[in-house]
């Protein structure tokens, strides 16, 4: 909301500096988005045109004598065409400073000119919002006084943000009250007495029938003797500074009162309301209404309208209708100061796609008591313009004062950590308009009628803290009591991330929401998803419609984008829908890498991936989980392994299926490992096994075996055959080729043999190896290569 500081000053004395005021507002909970400084203007006074003569040497110029309150009138030549004798106008005298010029004595075509009469633009007001030519001031304005001071033209305008609970403060008075409370300065409020007391002529008394519970209260008031014209200059200038275009005196008064009190108003041409009878009701399906902006709108029952017997006259709290609008010939009007349910106004406004200053207040639900206040202020201003005010008539719920809130005095300190005595607490609350009745240990606090947000003691404590100042509360480190809430899940993620970083992987973040294009890429590679995707109902765009079901697709897109060797990981949630929506924590790491020149039966990258996977799991669970061959959608069918523990899949890993990589546009081979965080076994502290004090011996075996026999099978048979003497078996080389034939492969293993109680003898080692060879031959059909 744009608030001219000059307007605030009408109600409260404030410091000169706009930044100081802005800071104070921020510390009261009203951040200032912008401080619009006004240009420096000086030396402009009120003058009156005494005489006008034609310029002797120039047809387009006139020479005016202007009484600017000095001893002698000033002679001023002007090219303006709207000047006339007796006009009261702003005059920039010699030495005056205007936004773009300084006034000096000069000759205009030979005629001495001792100043300049000013247009709105020369006073830094929007030219298109005021009359062309010289600005016209009210005839009663005292001559010679300073125009800048009179209208507050040099005070900055603040753009103030008001939180949704404080719609009462979407008003100059509301903010002035906050500042007055904070500065401890008196608040000068206008009277809220309604001058209308007369009874209307027969049949002219406005009646309101409220058919919708969303219209909570409706104050209607009739005025006669209205003459539509310009509003007073001071009001137009104030509105202009507040960013509101002056339109006509009636429209301006309704805007002025709304900006001043927060209560939106509407004026109807009384002659256009059938039987002076208004009805607040749901719109009928298909009912049409031309609103003030000349747009014909077709309504649904979601709209709340103010109507007469003939049909809708306006959208409640949002915008009036064109048909009942006040116009040039209007002489009698009916004022509406109504209260509506905020949700209803908001939903109507969204459905219609229309917002207004009025709806921006109504949608936050104003306090019903503001209707009286708004009507009273409008009535005073209308009466000042010569209108005759009849008595306001209120319909709908009666105004009931809010119940008093019990505020235990010690709760202020208990909640804030700031010790304040009851007197000071009361003072703060009273400054904000509360009524406080002190009790023994509590205060009975009745919130002001214009606020709906003060309901419980904590609400009042916030008020006390705001007025006292949040910055007066000392910052203290609490001593946190002990508790037994575990951090295991977070610790696991932290350790996984740290380990992967130490293994040379970079953590990345990809979007959890994906579009159809990702699904298409997967489908193009021939993969049918095992579960339904979880779909977002209201995505912002099509490429955010689905929740990711795995991390790998995002990483493939990343690898395609980087298009260079890269090592990456991500920890995040993935989603699938079975009977219900499922969400699990997942880690995927991997790399895009230049391919090795290797035979089809060997893949060093795979083994490196496996090594990193083993290292990672060892770091977080202390054990090595065994990998077995398997297949997984998206992974190369011959280069996929899984790690199971306790019947649950801890990890799967392998090379990305080349068809998938191609579909994602990844040029380099990609290897990934997917880890299911919930399946990672709990950390088991490893135990130290000291090596034997006696030397052991290592024996290498070169075996020839069938292609389908695995290194793990060979190792385990060897281990079992050697028995207790076996200190370790490890395959270290594989070979396939003509020497071993098409159906067979050669595998080299090294067995370490030893004892813990003595040095192993050659005879013992030979016997052990003999057992191994026999077992390998019998169980796996292995032959020894020599």
């Amino acid at each position, binding site marked *: 909301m744009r608030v001219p500081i000059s307007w605030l000053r009408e109600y409260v004395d404030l410091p000169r500096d706009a930044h100081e005021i802005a800071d104070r507002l921020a*510390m009261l*909970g009203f951040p200032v988005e912008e401080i619009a400084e006004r240009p420096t203007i000086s030396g402009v006074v009120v003058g009156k045109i005494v005489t006008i003569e034609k310029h002797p040497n120039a047809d387009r110029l006139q020479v005016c004598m202007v009484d600017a309150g000095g001893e002698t009138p000033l002679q001023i030549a002007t090219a303006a065409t709207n000047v006339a004798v007796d006009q009261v106008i702003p005059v920039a005298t010699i030495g005056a400073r205007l936004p773009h010029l300084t006034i000096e004595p000069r000759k205009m075509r030979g005629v001495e000119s001792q100043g300049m009469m000013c247009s709105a633009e020369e006073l830094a007001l929007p030219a298109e919002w005021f009359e062309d030519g010289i600005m016209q001031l009210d005839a009663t304005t005292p001559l010679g006084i300073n125009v800048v001071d009179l209208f507050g033209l040099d005070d900055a305008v603040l753009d103030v943000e008001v*939180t949704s609970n*404080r719609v009462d403060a979407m008003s100059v008075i509301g903010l002035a009250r906050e500042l007055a409370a904070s500065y401890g300065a008196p608040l000068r409020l206008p009277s809220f007495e309604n001058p209308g007391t007369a009874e209307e002529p027969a049949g002219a008394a406005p009646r309101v029938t409220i058919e919708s519970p969303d219209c909570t209260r409706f104050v209607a008031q009739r005025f006669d003797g209205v003459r539509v014209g310009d509003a007073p200059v001071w009001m137009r200038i104030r509105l202009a500074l507040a960013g509101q275009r002056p339109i006509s005196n009636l429209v301006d008064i309704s805007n002025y009162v709304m900006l001043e009190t927060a209560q939106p108003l509407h004026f109807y041409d009384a002659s256009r309301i059938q039987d002076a009878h208004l009805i607040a009701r749901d719109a009928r399906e298909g009912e049409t209404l031309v609103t003030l902006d000349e747009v014909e709108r077709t309504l649904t029952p979601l709209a709340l309208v103010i109507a007469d017997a003939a049909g809708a006259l306006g959208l409640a709290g949002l915008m009036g209708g064109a048909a009942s609008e006040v116009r040039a010939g209007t002489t009698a009007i009916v004022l509406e100061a109504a209260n509506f349910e*905020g949700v209803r106004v908001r939903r109507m406004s*969204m459905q219609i796609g229309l917002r207004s200053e009025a709806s921006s207040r109504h949608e936050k639900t104003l306090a019903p008591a503001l209707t009286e206040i708004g009507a009273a202020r409008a009535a005073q201003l209308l009466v000042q313009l010569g209108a005759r005010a009849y008595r306001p008539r209120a319909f709908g719920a009666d105004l009931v004062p809010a119940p008093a809130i019990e505020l235990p005095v010690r709760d202020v300190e*208990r*909640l*804030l950590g*700031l010790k304040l005595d009851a007197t000071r607490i009361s003072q703060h609350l009273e400054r904000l308009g509360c009524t406080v009745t002190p009790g023994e240990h509590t205060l009975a606090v009745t919130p002001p009628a214009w606020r709906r947000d003060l309901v*419980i003691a*904590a609400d009042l404590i*916030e008020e006390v*803290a*705001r007025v006292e100042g*949040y*910055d007066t*509360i*000392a*910052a*203290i*480190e*609490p001593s*946190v*009591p*002990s*508790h*037994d*809430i575990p*951090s295991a*899940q*977070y610790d696991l993620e932290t350790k996984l*991330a*740290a380990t992967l970083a*130490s*293994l*040379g*992987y*970079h*953590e*990345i*973040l990809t*979007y*959890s*929401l994906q579009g159809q294009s990702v699904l298409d890429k997967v489908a193009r590679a021939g993969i049918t998803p095992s579960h339904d995707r*979880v779909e*977002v*109902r*209201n*995505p912002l765009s099509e490429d*955010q419609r689905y*929740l990711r079901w795995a991390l790998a697709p995002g990483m493939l897109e990343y690898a395609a984008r980087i298009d*260079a060797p*890269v*090592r*990456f990981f991500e920890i*995040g*949630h993935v989603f699938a829908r079975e009977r219900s*929506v499922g*969400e699990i924590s997942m880690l995927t790491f991997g790399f895009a890498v230049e391919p090795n020149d290797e035979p089809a039966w060997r893949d060093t990258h795979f083994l490196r991936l496996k090594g990193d996977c083993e290292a990672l799991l060892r770091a977080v669970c202390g054990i090595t989980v065994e990998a077995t061959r398997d297949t997984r959608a998206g992974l190369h069918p011959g280069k996929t392994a899984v790690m199971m523990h306790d019947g649950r899949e801890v990890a799967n890993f392998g090379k990305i299926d080349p068809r998938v990589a191609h579909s994602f546009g990844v040029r380099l081979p990609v290897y990934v490992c997917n880890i299911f965080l919930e399946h990672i076994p709990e950390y088991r502290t490893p135990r130290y096994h000291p090596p034997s004090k006696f030397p052991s011996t290592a024996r290498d075996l070169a075996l020839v075996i069938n292609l389908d026999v695995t290194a793990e099978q060979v190792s385990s048979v060897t281990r079992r055959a050697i028995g207790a003497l076996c200190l370790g078996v490890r395959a270290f080389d594989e070979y396939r080729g003509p020497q071993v034939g098409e159906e067979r492969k050669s595998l080299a293993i090294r067995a370490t043999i030893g004892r813990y109680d003595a040095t192993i003898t050659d005879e013992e080692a030979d016997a052990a190896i003999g057992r191994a060879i026999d077992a390998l031959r019998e169980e796996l059909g292995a032959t020894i290569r020599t």
Partner: protein
Amino acid sequence: MSELATKLDDLYARFERAITTADDERALDAARVAFLGRSGEVTAVRRGIGQLPPAERPDAGKVINAAVERMEAALAGAVARIENRAFDTELAQSIDVTFPAIAAPTGSIHPVRRVLQDAVAYFERHGFATVLGMEIEPDYYTFDALNIPATHPAREGFDSFFISDSLLLRPHTSPMQIRTMQAHKPPIAVVAPGKCYRRDAVDARHLFQFHQIEGLLVAEGIHFGHLKGMLTGLCRELFGADQRVRFRPSFFPFTEPSAEVDTTCPKCKGGTAACNMCGGSGWIELGGAGMVHPNVLHEVGYDTGIYTGWAFGFGIERLALTRYDIDDIRRFVDCDPDFLRQLA
């Protein structure tokens, strides 16, 4: 001069020549073997003691030993000379130490996680536990239990991504307040970092997914001053010891009193109009905080007569943008290798 002395002098002269001309350890060793070895020349001299004139014999052993000592000293000198020559060669090497390093093959933790970890570490040091939650939450945990009424605009599907009528992607980490308080009796001291989602169009300042860190402390005797204390400490931990922190009144349905928390701009240290980090205000907005609303405590069955508490929720991306002076929030999801390397 005696015959033995003449012989030994001659022998020494030849030995010295041999070791002086020796170029490496092998040549030296050959000289040693030839003269001092088991069947070397010195041994031959010792064997010839019997042939010496009788007057020389009694002292011959002593004289020979003295000569051997002298030869061994000369040999040690020669060994040292050759060793030093090797050192000198190596020591003569000189390189351009400013030549670019060969990078270690290290990985990195994402800057968002790093900031998150630093924040969490601060709270854990003060006795807080860290809990994680789900990203899809029922509206009960996202709104109702947090005192956000059914008619609140945030619930109408303009701000949050909905999965069904009652399930949505959490727009804040605050559901973890409810889940933690339901699962545990007070006292509660937790932080809950995690991913959140809001329907924001992606631009330099917004992503539709982001991270928050939620904090919740509920116990006897907890007040707003403690909130200020902890969050001031957090800002100093993350941005430096001279950080100032400002608490401004604000409004959130689940806290009362509520506050917006700002910290001094670490880039311009308090406001220059041209600062692109704070826009010249001198302050960085970190997020919301406040005393847990009594309705929230009632909802989880806590006795508000005994317990008070505070909560806060900060955006982690915002902390990271500020800390690393990053110009565009989209860099966090672009994850350009150079970006990750620079911040690693």
